[in-house]
């Protein structure tokens, strides 16, 4: 079972935090800080598995993480999940984000947290892996977004596509807009 999914940047600021078990707010922030401390000390070429910290659970839990450009994607899992499977799941998640927001970068995650939550909800539900096929996930997410937009523009279907293009491109994209995936050699990553 997946206990928590965290995304934070190289300075420890949380970009997404999803807990599948209840902790109160202070504990959640502490978990994020502690995970950041553990993960940021790691070298680039060591393995992606960390024995977990003390806060998020005892000896059964491990942290499986990947570092892309400026972001760390950390999944905290217990022993019933396969480590290599979760590693591949992180890859699928990032590739899905890449497809949904063209050339996803950190700013996309900052300004569209709710969309990222929606995508994640299609992949992991209740701490268990729901869907791992990228195309399937994207189809469902697109259909849901379409439904949402049809509530706002019921009569003008062509403006749907217009709106869609507008909503995914940010005005004034400045600063950290390095694409998440292209910094690291991930697409030719051997799956």
């Amino acid at each position: 079972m997946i206990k928590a999914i965290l995304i934070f940047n190289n300075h420890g600021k949380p970009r997404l935090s999803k807990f599948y078990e209840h902790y109160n707010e202070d504990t959640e922030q502490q978990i994020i800080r502690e995970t950041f401390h553990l993960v940021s000390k790691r070298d680039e070429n060591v393995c992606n598995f960390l024995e977990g910290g003390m806060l998020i659970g005892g000896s059964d839990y491990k942290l499986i993480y990947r570092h892309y450009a400026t972001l760390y994607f950390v999944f905290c899992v217990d022993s019933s999940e396969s480590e290599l499977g979760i590693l591949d799941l992180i890859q699928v998640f990032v590739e899905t984000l890449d497809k949904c927001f063209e050339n996803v970068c950190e700013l996309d995650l900052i300004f569209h947290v709710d969309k990222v939550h929606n995508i994640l909800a299609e992949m992991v539900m209740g701490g268990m892996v729901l869907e791992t096929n990228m195309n399937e996930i994207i189809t469902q997410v697109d259909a849901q977004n379409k439904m949402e937009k049809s509530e706002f523009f019921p009569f003008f279907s062509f403006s749907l596509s217009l709106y869609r293009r507008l909503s995914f491109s940010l005005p004034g994209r400045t600063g950290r807009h390095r694409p998440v995936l292209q910094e690291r050699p991930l697409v030719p990553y051997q799956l």
Partner: protein
Amino acid sequence: MSPSVPLQEMIRAIRSARTQCEERGVIQRECAAIRAQFRQADNGGRSHNLAKLLYVHMLGYPAHFGQMECVRMIASPRYSEKRVGYLGAMMLLDEKQDASLLITNSIKNDLSNSNQYIQSLALCTLACMGSAEMCRDLAPEIDRLLRASNSYIKKKAALCAVHIVRKVHDLGELFTKAALNSSCCEYYFQFISYCFWFSFTVPDLVQIMKGLVISGYSPDHDVAGISDPFLQVRILRLLRILGRNNEAASDAMNDLLAQVATNTDSTKTVGNAVLYETVLTVLDIKSESGLRVLAVNILGRFLLNNDRNIRYIAMTSLQKIVGTDHNAVQRHRGTIVDCLKDQDASVKRRALELSLALVSASNIRSMMKELLSFLSSCPPELRSQTASGIFNAAERYAPSQRWHIDTILHVLTTAGGDVRDETVPNLIQLITNTSELHCYTVHKLYRALLSDISQQPLVQVACWCIGEYGDLLLTGECQETEPVQVTEDYVLDVLETVLQSHMSSPSTRGFALTATMKLSTRIRSIVSIYGSCIDVELQQRAVEYNALFKKYDHMRAAVLERMPVIEKNSQGHTNGETIKESQTVKVKPGEPQQPANQVQDLLDLLGGLEPTPITPGLTFTYTHNELQKQETGRDF
């Protein structure tokens, strides 16, 4: 309006704050505005406000005032509001809040909604934060959805059912019938693992699995040449659960597992993932020995892989079977011991645990060498584990007492600060048991103490040993190691250094104090030995010192106080005589200042008599002449 735009503006405002204080100010203003808007009856912007609140919650600020708003939004007929409402419910509500019960009815209505996406929202929320009561109420609904024709909903309902069964175990029975009827959904498998009586479905699963392994290329589910690896992994995991402790089921899957193990391509990570699951399954069920050997060989191949991840999981799996298939794992001992030198801390930890498990009577010496060199270079968080592991191994398999003591001393000198508290008494008990090695031990400890007094456990043991066997140290002979030339002064100096060092903890000082007192007794016994010495001079001294202990104890402190400054004598030959005398009396069991002071202190504590002040010219019942008194003084 979609919730995105005002949310983005707020996010931009928060990010433009340059200090933590400014950010807090911005967020407080926004929260106040949101709270005011929540209180208003109905406005179009409800979803933006909740989205903003959720963002603020992620940053760590309190957001509990949004809970009722979540409940209201979930009940709204619009999809966008429902979506944000459910997201809010997942983040802000939990089973301990009362508000969570209020959404039960909304969820129930949404579960029967005609729109599958609304149903999926409800299922998702229930799976994330459903409490036991909610689960009980909504279980029949989930059961109905499990039989639905829509596979998208079926999948989600299955996972929701998993959550329900986890929360309320009795409801498992309710769902098994539904699960049996459906065959296409792989997510049932995870859920079925909670119900243990499905042995007859093993042939079905084996059939499906065979199809996947043998079948040709299917582009939908293919990942790098292996068809639907996620499904394969799932099925393998379920087979593992079904086959555990179940002979019949295990037999049925033996062939399949052998086939998967040999046919899967292990050059890509996906292949390795499937192989890994296969290995875990083989090791868990009651498989035949040939299959187990195959599994351990696969793990051995993983150990030699360049990818650290693969090595890590290989060691994790070997750890699980080292108890049962000890010999098989021993074959890979060399590789595992090499992994101790890897730079990666996770790999080192795994290698350490595995190495400690692999220590046996035959390889104890070589393994211990490796472990001791690891101890000197290992990361600090692993030191105490290594030290205790070494102690356990040494206790179980020590080839000789001397080797055992040497090993323990080595650990204490290298990592003394990280050993557990009971190490000291254990070691002391061990030393007392090996009476023939007392001399050797005390010599070694004395040398160790001379070089370094910062390692507390070592110092404690050393003090205790010197206190007990200090006489052996002074006799200056030892078969096993070169004797060290000491006099009591040196020994007591060392103890004094320990007592006065700022590095010594209170318990260490206690040890040193006790040792010093013991030495006084030991020395007393030496004194009494010399009571029957041939040399009359020695005999006389010995008897008189013994009397000092026995009858004139109250004066002992006074007698043995520091001598006053001795004025230089003009007679040259007297000095020569004194020097000669002091040389012949090698073993001079004198009471130096330090213990005398302490005796004094102790006497004070015990309410003893006050020491009478000494004047240099005081004579006692001894029949010493002036010269000898001076001589005695010089020895101090």
